[in-house]
């Protein structure tokens, strides 16, 4: 019987996070994501050269609504040493006017300390307040110059300052769109028009947790991936999904005991991996362990 193979004209772009010594940085290794030449896990149809990767989310200030460590540097070390993290995602929540209003200089100093403390590649996120992030993130980009971090997030309303900083200091950018494929495409075009290559963009499609609009992001990701594989380069960027943050907001995750919470985060991640997620930012070490094992199983030949 003749099987049915799709012939894809395009491929997802490959994004490199972290620069080693040879590449002008100080990271122990470089993480690569993307590069798919077929839909999720149809290995017989096309290459899937890079596994989806999980970043441990850590905050500069102790989170109020989920358990973290008080000191972000020791937190990072725990992730690296105890949990074998491959990638860290630092959220600079403390920059926010409501959460400490830390200055750009202080946050830049923190980034330098973190880079010294651990040798993992970094994702660095702002606090969500555009005005403040536009001060803090460029300072952090400069402080981490040459380390090829992934920095976010650029939005349709606020992308110029961050794009310029990322471009100047050799990083990658997260382009965030509100569950809207047209805005995702538009923002990628706007950013690349400023001179930052499409290969340096990760798309945050804005996901919802299991039971909280997961299916919207799921289908946006499937549509974007189909477009990317069909040759639309402006939609061929890898996806970054903030799984932990969304999953642990769900009532089912918070109110029924830790095991159900872990399951909620793991199943949210699973569904998005099946929709094409390349980088998952997650919170609970047990959920991360399970998802990592799941990814390992998918890639075992």
């Amino acid at each position, binding site marked *: 019987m003749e*099987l*049915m193979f799709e012939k894809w004209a395009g491929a997802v772009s490959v994004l490199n996070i972290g620069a080693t010594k040879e590449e002008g940085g100080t990271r122990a290794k470089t993480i690569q994501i993307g590069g798919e030449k077929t839909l999720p896990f*149809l*290995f017989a149809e096309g290459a899937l050269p890079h596994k989806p990767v999980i970043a441990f989310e850590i905050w500069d200030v102790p989170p109020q609504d989920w358990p973290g460590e008080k000191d972000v540097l020791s937190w990072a070390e725990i992730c690296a040493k105890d949990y074998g993290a491959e990638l860290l995602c630092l959220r600079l929540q403390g920059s926010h006017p409501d959460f400490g209003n830390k200055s750009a200089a202080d946050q830049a100093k923190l980034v330098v300390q973190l880079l010294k403390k651990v040798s993992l590649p970094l994702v660095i996120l702002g606090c969500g307040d555009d005005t403040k992030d536009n001060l803090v993130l460029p300072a952090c980009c400069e402080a981490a110059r040459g380390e090829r971090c992934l920095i976010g997030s650029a939005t349709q309303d606020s992308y110029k300052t961050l794009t310029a900083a990322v471009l100047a200091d050799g990083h990658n950018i997260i382009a965030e769109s509100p569950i809207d494929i047209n805005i995702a495409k538009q923002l990628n075009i706007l950013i690349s028009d400023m001179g930052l290559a499409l290969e340096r963009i990760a798309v945050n499609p804005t996901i919802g947790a299991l*039971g*909280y609009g*997961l299916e919207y992001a799921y289908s946006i990701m499937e549509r974007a991936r189909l477009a990317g594989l069909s040759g639309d380069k402006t939609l061929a960027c890898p996806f970054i999904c903030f799984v932990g943050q969304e999953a642990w907001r769900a009532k089912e995750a918070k109110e029924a*005991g830790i095991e159900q919470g872990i399951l909620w985060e793991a199943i949210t991640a699973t569904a998005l991996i099946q929709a094409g997620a390349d980088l998952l930012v997650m919170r609970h070490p047990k959920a991360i362990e399970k998802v990592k094992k*799941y990814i390992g199983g998918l890639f075992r030949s």
Partner: protein
Amino acid sequence: MALSGLDIYKLLPKTNCRECGFVTCLAFAMQLAKKAVSIDKCPYLSPDAKKTLETSGQPPIKLVTIGSGEEKLAVGNETVLFRHEEKFHNPCGIGSILNDNLSENEIKKQLDIINKLKFERIGQALEVNLVAIKQNSTAENFLKAVACVMNNTRLGLVLMTAEPKALKEALKITKDRRPLIYSLSGDYTEVAQLAKEFNAPLVAIAQNLEALSSLTQDLNKQGVSEIVLDTGIKPIKDKIWDLTQIRRLALKKSNRSLGYPMLVVVDKNDPVEEAMEAASYVAKYAGIILLKNVNTAEALSLLTLRQNIYTDPQKPLQIEPKLYPIGNADKNSPLLVTTNFSLTYYTVLGEVEASKIPSYILSVDTEGMSVLTAWAAEKFTPEKINDSINKSGAKEAVAHKKIIIPGYVAVMSGDLEEASGLQVIVGPKEAAGLPAFLKNL
């Protein structure tokens, strides 16, 4: 593939004899395409044309029903590879496998848990669908277990046995329940006869698609038409390949021999890993998923994922438009207004809960549209909101005369104040801003 009116016209005699009741053959063809008339109305149709038309009328993936009465499960009849193209039609059946070497008490205990795996989310009832009984010991034990399961659950039944004799007896016991036959023997000679005799759907099992295709054709010849496909236990990526190929071949290549719903058995002991594997198949085309474990959290997460994946992308889920007290809301609690699009409402709800400030959320009937869409479509206007304030009893619920509206519709503040007589406070544009906003209110 469904034929168009013109495709059908080409197969008709084109004599315009009017015996079918239509003025022309073309008019008749158009009605046939809409499935509004039967092809039997044309007395002059050639046998070949008739066969072509009959098969073209069948769905590319057959609808298979298991069980009877209220708990009847219907799977199959799918039409697309990606849910955004249309929708996934019939939510996959989820069930667990019980072994016949359990004691009657243990089986009852398990069924107690299984029968309670019912949840309500966003106004929909979610529940598991099937219980499979697997023969691991003697035929006698198997039949005892089948009887026990049948008497203690209303869910659909799957009979897993290698012995045709035991199967026949089990079918006799369960014939009114229309169970799914899952033969472990690999020999379908007697099994196919039993499926036909008891009019029960049958699982066709073969490791590769070639063998599976000839097996279903064989079963078809023996008169079994309701078939479910299984390619055996394999690594997840291999299962996804099989599931995708079967779906593609049925839909895109009109391969009738693979045009059936697919069943997967998940063979993992760790409940989280089992749930993750099952979740992969919920997303990727499984019609029936059978699990080993029976666990509330696992069932809830899988049923929720199934609800998400099988939601019609064109018809957003809505919640009942009314006043919702959040936390211990009292007369002094803030009153917020939003739409009845479930995603919007649940996002607002999540943030209000996160703020830990007891509040009221008034959900206005916007026919399931989000704030900006509803505003643009005039479903979220000062008049509509005022209507909702009056009907919901919001004015009686709070002592203050203030209402918080989403930041995106700040422009309606004046009109809403005029219409409602309440003071309008403009909230944040995004729900994420609510905790900080409510704290500073």
